[in-house]
């Protein structure tokens, strides 16, 4: 069982961030929320591990 990776794991952080914004380009706020929801589901499935997903949800919820 692999724990949630919280150390830097993306080779090109700036490039990824730019791609994320570009993916949303031209969408309304509602459409962006919908895209984000789909993205969460897609990435969650890719991760698959219940423990990693649980840790990710806890981290995301922290401070909300």
């Amino acid at each position, binding site marked *: 069982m692999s724990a949630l990776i919280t150390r830097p794991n993306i080779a090109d952080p700036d490039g990824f961030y730019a791609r994320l914004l570009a993916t949303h380009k031209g969408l309304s706020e509602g459409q962006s*929320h*919908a895209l984000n*929801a*789909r993205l*969460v*589901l*897609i990435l969650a*499935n890719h991760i698959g591990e219940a423990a990693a997903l649980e840790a990710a949800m806890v981290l995301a919820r922290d401070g909300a």
Partner: protein
Amino acid sequence: MPYDYRPFDYVPPAGLREAEPRHPVVIVGAGPVGLAMAIELANHGVRAVVVDDNNVVSVGSRAICWSKRSLEILDRLGVGQPCVEKGVIWQVGRTYHREAEVFNFDLLPEDGHKMPAFVNLQQYWVEAFLVARAVELGVDLRWKNRVTGVVQGADHVALSIETPDGTYALQADYVVACDGARSPLRGMLGLEFEGELFEERFLIADIEMEADFPSERRFWFEPGFHAGQSALLHKQPDNIYRIDLQLGWDTDPEVERQPERILPRIERVVGHRDFSLDWTSIYTFQCRRMRSFVQDRVIFAGDSAHVVSPFGARGGNSGLQDVDALGWRLAAVLRGEAPAAALMAYDCERVHGADENLMNSSRSTRFMSPGAGVERLFRDAVLHLAGRADFARPMVNSGRLSKPCTYPLEAPDHPALPQAARPGSVAPDAPQGDGWLIDALGGRFVLVAFGEAPELPGLPVLRPQPNAAVIKRWLGSEVTALYLVRPDQVIAARWVSASAEEVAAALLAAQEGRT
């Protein structure tokens, strides 16, 4: 053709003339659960009185999807064959988003079971078969007998009963309340449901038409014929189709139940007007249960104890599972063979079953009828992705159909034996020559043996033929096994080998409800 409702005869009960002797059991409610309860008790040698405030079977189809486990129970009660012969057999469900199929399931992908995954059969047919069987067994059925009062005594329950000829009193050692979701008995005892009420309305309609829909469950999210809402279609016998249409919470039920509102809606579903309306109703979702199903000497079973939304076929089926878990125990208590405390095992097991049903039902309801905001956002995200990526398809939730739960027993287990046959599970069926293992188990405690079996007085030993299905479902990679199976065909304990003392201890624990 529509069902031919024929009222059952009201006969003035003896209690109107003189006090009746105390009965072992009075069952309140002659729906599928109450009738099944009476037959199950009769099979265990207990003659029950059944009182019902009406004198006909269910008006409208109501519970229609009977699961494999329910069919096995109905079969043990003597009505399995007519139900399967009359019903529409199905096992595949298809879910659509707009026009595209986004998910399907096959509920019984393997052969070698006596009963199919599901049959669709209107509740009135099931009740009619059960009434005929109950009459055959000499069950004391009392139509037009309405309970108006209940008092719990130290060693009995006293009921006041109203008939067309006046009121009389009945006493019973135990009362089983099978009087439905709005249970008058629950109200009289001041007991309440706990849980969620969902703000959603559905229109339900039975229509009669000549059509060639396949024997499958079909569910649509946001279909073109019912914009923005959802719809469910089931095929029933006699050219009757069942349609459930989501209406939304802001609709007015009084307006929606008018035929001039219903007819165009149905027309959009089936594509023509060549049908007749047989029955309609409007319902809301509830996912609630009583805290405890055993209230001193009044025991609740079926909808009186727990209610769920209808999309998992978990209402009627869970009611029959209640009967399954209660009948043999109540009979044993009445015969003096088990302590009254054994009834608490019924409460524990069926509360567990109800909670599993409530959880599944609540999840389905949230998916079908999401709250505004994030619930809606993720629901729509799943539907959007389901047509594009396989992973999202199993998240599409149009109802997860009833399967018997595994009771949380603390009983001897051997983990190398197949997981599906672990203690607390319903014993898996398998072919046995021309017959079936489920029939051979019957309705008593039995020791199923592969290899050596200790001898215990009064405990019959069953030695199944070890064919491929039996080996897969009961032995796995082991060569010997012993299974103690309860009268409700639930596995009470299992070993690869055991002494007479070990088996006797497990038997006593199961009988006394200590597992």
